[in-house]
């Protein structure tokens, strides 16, 4: 199966929503603690064989996350550790990039998510405890959401409602926001420990999945958030990222500091449906292709990027 060795430590992977063979990878030198960053755009090469690099962009500080525009197939947004958010246009020569650098966050930007419904805006979350809303045509942020008491690790748009998103924070809460409202609409004390990741279900717009330092993954219904619908145990260290499948209502992918990537079906008793231990360091980035059902991508601090169909060995040559 295709794999790619990056010079820096992997932080995040994202399949292009436009091309099934394009993959963006965010990487940071020295585990993201000190040094440069690099964004790779890879050709997954569905025919098999090694992945080839289409282009790459270097940054002065680590890149923690990257996402594709839902509107323009060539547009990428990157979350940079120096607090900036940078936009890249793949159609332009490297010298013309980044096309924009937005410096408002005062600490590391840890996630970026493009609005899939309205397609004109994106949100970033940062270790400065805030979330910012941006549109492509404005040089400054539209709004700053400041309620969390510690690092915000991820914020994700609702797949149905253009104005709603949720955020996961190190203050142990998940909050649900409506950009039309002045304050957050819901505070979910999701875990006893830091919450590192969250995602919305793609078929039921009331379901949220959360992942925490407490090693567990929880699925919540926002209409009744006193108790989780289910708790998924199986990772042996903090769960770094969690994601609902774009194809199956009950399928969840996760990756963890225990170096594994896991697949879960939260509706069945034996929820763990797949475990991949191909990484030899912390697995910190995972994504599922929207265009090819069952196609997974992951990256980790072992400087490797893997793409494989569910059920096969990612390391198989």
């Amino acid at each position: 199966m295709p794999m790619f060795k990056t010079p820096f430590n992997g932080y995040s992977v994202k399949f292009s929503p436009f091309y099934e063979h394009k993959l963006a990878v965010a990487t940071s030198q020295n585990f993201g603690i000190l040094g440069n960053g690099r964004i790779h755009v890879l050709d997954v090469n569905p025919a098999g064989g090694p992945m080839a690099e289409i282009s790459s962009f270097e940054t002065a500080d680590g890149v923690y996350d990257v996402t594709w525009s839902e509107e323009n197939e060539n547009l990428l947004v990157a979350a940079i550790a120096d607090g900036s958010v940078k936009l890249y246009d793949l159609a332009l020569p490297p010298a013309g990039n980044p096309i924009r650098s937005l410096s408002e966050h005062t600490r590391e930007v840890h996630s970026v998510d493009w609005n899939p419904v309205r397609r004109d805006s994106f949100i970033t979350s940062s270790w400065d405890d805030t979330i910012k809303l941006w549109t492509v045509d404005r040089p400054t942020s539209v709004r700053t959401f400041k309620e969390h008491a510690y690092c915000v690790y991820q914020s994700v748009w609702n797949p149905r409602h253009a104005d709603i998103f949720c955020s996961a924070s190190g203050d142990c809460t998940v909050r649900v926001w409506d950009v039309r409202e002045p304050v957050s609409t819901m505070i979910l004390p999701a875990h006893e420990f830091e919450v590192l990741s969250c995602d919305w279900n793609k078929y039921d717009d009331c379901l949220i999945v959360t992942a925490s330092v407490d090693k567990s993954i929880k699925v919540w219904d926002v209409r009744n958030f006193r108790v989780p619908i289910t708790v998924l145990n199986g990772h042996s260290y903090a769960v770094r990222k969690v994601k609902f499948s774009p194809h199956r209502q009950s399928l969840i992918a996760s990756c963890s500091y225990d170096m594994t990537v896991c697949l879960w079906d939260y509706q069945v008793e034996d929820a763990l449906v797949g475990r991949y231990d191909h990484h030899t360091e912390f697995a910190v980035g995972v994504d599922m292709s929207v265009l090819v059902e069952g196609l997974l991508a992951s990256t980790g601090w072992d400087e490797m990027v893997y793409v494989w169909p569910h059920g096969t060995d990612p390391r198989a040559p």
Partner: protein
Amino acid sequence: MEKAINRQRVLLEHLRPSSSQRSESVISPSICSAGDSAAYQRTAAFGDDVVIVAAYRTALCKSKRGGFKDTLPDDILAPVLRAVMEKTNVNPAEVGDIVVGTVLAPGSQRASECRMAAFYAGFPDTVPIRTVNRQCSSGLQAVADVAAAIKAGFYDVGIGAGLESMTVNPMAWEGSINPRASTIKQAQDCLLPMGITSENVAHRFGVTRTEQDQAAVESHRRAAAATAAGKFKDEIVPVHTKIVDPKTGEEKSVTISVDDGIRPSTTVADLAKLRTVFKKDGTTTAGNSSQVSDGAGAVLLMKRSLAMQKGLPILGVFRSFVAVGVEPDVMGVGPAVAIPAAVKAAGLELDDIDLFEINEAFGSQFVYCRNKLGLDPAKVNVNGGAMAIGHPLGATGARCVATLLHEMKRRGKDSRFGVISMCIGTGMGAAAVFERGDCVDELRNARQIQAHNFLSKDAR
């Protein structure tokens, strides 16, 4: 630094959540007290070093009697040139230069043959080619030349190759000898047959016949074991050619994919019966000398950043190359001088080297060099050497690169640095240091460590 400490603190919290009061673990920059040996693992963040992504060779066959006796030199070279491109899927038009080490053939004719071989291999006419002659080390010199040109920025992708057909071009001296040679001893010594230099090494440094025969037997044993285990399958490119029956004159098409000089059943007792060739009371026989062979090899080198861009597995990293001069009448001692120089140039120590490929031109010089440097025989020529596999002069260097790097790949974590070295007629030696690439599966290849081997040299 403040930033790095804060980042480390945030990430540590993910791993040690139990410590509710934020613990004060602080990193601070300091000079590494263990020094700065090149042997310490570091990441190649800049991607500007020269790496090897493919190394292949033909089988080596006995000249005049072996598999390539009826194959023209360019037909031996073309398959390996084609193989390095096909197995990596690199577009031949991207190659900046091809350098072929080749020794015995007349210079200009061989250069033309190589150019033609490139066309047979499917290269477009835009790709240049040249030959290089540093006698027995020409193949290694070709690889070093390409590495140097990539490092200098002349081009990003190049092929270092080697070719010799000792069937077509036997060793010979053409024309008369300058009478002036007799006025300078070293110049005169350049005319000595290689076998005499071998006898000189044996005599001067006291290498016995038995030691030489033992080295030859071990070489055959290891080469036979490696062949039986299928180890050479990774590096040998099968060549489809023809062979003519010497009696009937009948032409037969064959595929040559196995070295045909290896004799697994060789024993010290058998070799002891052989007559010496160069000196009546000497020690050098046909059995403890390298074989006269035909063959070719090719190595694809490129800048690391390009290899990573293409997603090619990195087989090895080119670290250093050194050529030295020694006394011509004992030319075989070349590796004993060249190896320490190349290892030093790579910033390493002899102990850091896990594998050696030392060309066995003669049992005498091979045993001398091994003992002089105090090398562990278990690390030297682990898959046999030229006494068993053969020594097609110009191709040997490229052959060694293929053998060494594929062996390092198999050994994985167990071997990080390898050295290739050979003596050179007229009194020289060459050596190069290679580092294992990162395409090996480190976990699968890891072996248990028997005794504590301190990671830092200063821990000793």
